[in-house]
């Protein structure tokens, strides 16, 4: 499918929103305004957006601990997300979930997940619902290179294959499971693992939105067409540490500076669409300014928002009890 001008603008806006959101959370966390753990997606934008541009309201995704980008790419409200990360009552989850559990089922976003490898089995279930209820939907499991080694993930490959489920497994390989290099921790290759389970495995450059988009287009087409699951191995980088506060001493000197300068997904996108005269630089500048305003507002509103009250502690455990 050829991407329209509107599609390209949306892709850029979503990627810029993720970058601005994450850079700002990085700054605000350092100032002490945000409680708990946060894991930032900056640098990985082309993956979440490239995949989710192929999805619609029928489709479900399950995310990881590094879930902010997937939320934005699947259409979650950035202000509601920011309030959630600040632990406020008006947050997307009422302040009860936080960064690692942001979800919006109404947008098909089944949750960031604090358990590495927690998502793939759930996605098999979402795909089973789509198959049984004949919605035409597909379900996407994002996992990291760390999560790719969990038994839940490997079991899900098998279940998705034997039930022929409309699933896409997206392995976002940012090179590190916490501090441990994926080059060390992953036996074999992601692509060959997929093939060993009887499904196609695609490998893409995760800095290139167009490469991810095209792979996900192929994979979702297979899933919707009844051909079952497939896997996309997305090679990319994270701009920050495993979590905020990580000094990243395990990375090479100059590594992050180099990838920011040479393989930044937003810069690459901008260069491609401008050189091909698909979009004008000033249109993208406008989006940058609008997104900055949005995130400024999101932070200001989150800081001012009321926290949950004592009564909120006891609600939402059960539907009835």
């Amino acid at each position: 499918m050829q991407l329209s001008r509107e599609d390209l603008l949306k892709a850029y806006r979503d990627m810029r929103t993720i970058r601005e959101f994450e850079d700002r959370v990085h700054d605000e966390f350092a100032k002490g305004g945000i409680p708990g753990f946060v894991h930032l997606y900056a640098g990985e934008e082309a993956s979440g957006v490239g995949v989710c541009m192929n999805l619609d309201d029928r489709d479900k995704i399950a995310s990881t601990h590094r879930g902010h980008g997937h939320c934005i790419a699947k259409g979650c409200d950035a202000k509601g997300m920011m309030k959630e990360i600040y632990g406020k009552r008006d947050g997307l989850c009422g302040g009860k979930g936080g960064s690692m559990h942001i979800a919006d089922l109404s947008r098909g976003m089944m949750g960031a997940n604090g358990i590495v490898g927690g998502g793939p089995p759930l996605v098999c279930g979402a795909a089973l619902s789509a198959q049984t209820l004949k919605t035409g939907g597909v379900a996407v499991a994002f996992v990291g290179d760390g999560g790719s080694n969990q038994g839940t993930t490997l079991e899900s490959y098998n279940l998705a294959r034997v039930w022929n489920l409309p699933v896409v497994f997206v392995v976002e390989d940012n090179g590190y499971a916490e501090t441990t290099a994926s080059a060390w921790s992953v036996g074999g290759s992601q692509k060959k693992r997929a093939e060993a389970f009887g499904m196609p495995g695609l490998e893409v450059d995760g800095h290139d939105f167009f490469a991810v988009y095209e792979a996900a287009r192929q994979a979702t087409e297979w899933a919707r067409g009844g051909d079952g699951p497939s896997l996309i191995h997305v090679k990319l980088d994270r701009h920050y540490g495993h979590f905020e506060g990580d000094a990243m001493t395990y990375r090479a000197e100059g590594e992050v500076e180099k990838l920011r300068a040479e393989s930044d997904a937003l810069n690459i996108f901008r260069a491609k669409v401008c050189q091909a005269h698909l979009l004008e630089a000033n249109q993208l500048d406008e989006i940058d300014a609008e997104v900055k305003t949005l995130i400024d507002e999101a932070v200001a509103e989150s800081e001012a928002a009321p926290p949950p009250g004592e009564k909120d502690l006891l609600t939402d455990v059960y539907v009835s009890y």
Partner: protein
Amino acid sequence: MSKKSFRQAINEALAQEMRRDPTVIVMGEDNAGGMGAPGEDDAWGGVLGVTKGLMPEFGRERVLDTPISESAFIGAAVGAAATGLRPVAELMFVDFLGVCFDQIFNQAGKFKYMFGGKAVTPVVIRTMYGAGFRAASQHSQCLYPIFTHIPGLKVVIPSSPYEAKGLMIQAIRDDDPVIFLEHKVMYDDEEEVPDEPYTIPFGEANLTREGEDVTIVAFGRMVNFSNEVADKLAKDGISCTVVDPRTTSPLDTDTILECVEETGRLVVVDEASPRCNMATDISALVAQEAFGALKAPIKMVTPPHTPVPFSPQLEDLYIPSPEKIEAAVRAVAGE
């Protein structure tokens, strides 16, 4: 009304709910059986035959055989429940909890709260528990205290075929995740069970015997043992109330406390391992809320703090027996 076994009662509940609601599906290892094999379809109906006959009526789309892959398919049941189905997944033995617990306690049990109330996860996980089958340490545990510990889960322990049918239909219609525990020794127990669908609400205890001297609280198979003891002791002039809470979460604390207020004596019978089980939980409740009513120290009848042994002689010593329950009741009654 007709005589049905515990197994038939659950099977009938599943079939009736599947007829009523097309979003109800069942899944598990060999739930039909024979998938991909050259012989008979519906070969097993689950390892103990509880789902036998469902596949011929509802088809493979709604009766799903799974690989031996509990993490994936229990998780899939949870994910399907969060996206529009009402799956009843079979965890063949509760002891297999160890390989899929994350999907139950970190995912299913927490979705609603973590997502600010917006998630609904109407999954039922049926699972077989209990000692008495000479099945040894990894196929004989109770483990329901572990589920009971988790906010967000409901935990059901039926004590008879009638109870099993009504509680299963309630479990399927319930919008929260439900763990439904079936005692493996009870599948052939029979009693009169209505043919039509009915529900038994969660969190409402059933008094299977009513008396004045001693309150016995028991779960699952231990309710039957306690009834037996109550009937025997009634002839000796000790009258017992037997409380079957039916569900450990929610727990009908009001009824337990009312009964203890009336009798002043409490025996709790629990087949689960003795540390942090339902016996300690209910004893603590009564000590805190009804201490003044107690005329004697509370007695707990449980197995010892050991794995379940294999040898029939040892397993018989392990299981709380009617004799041990009787001795405890006589002791609190002052004999």
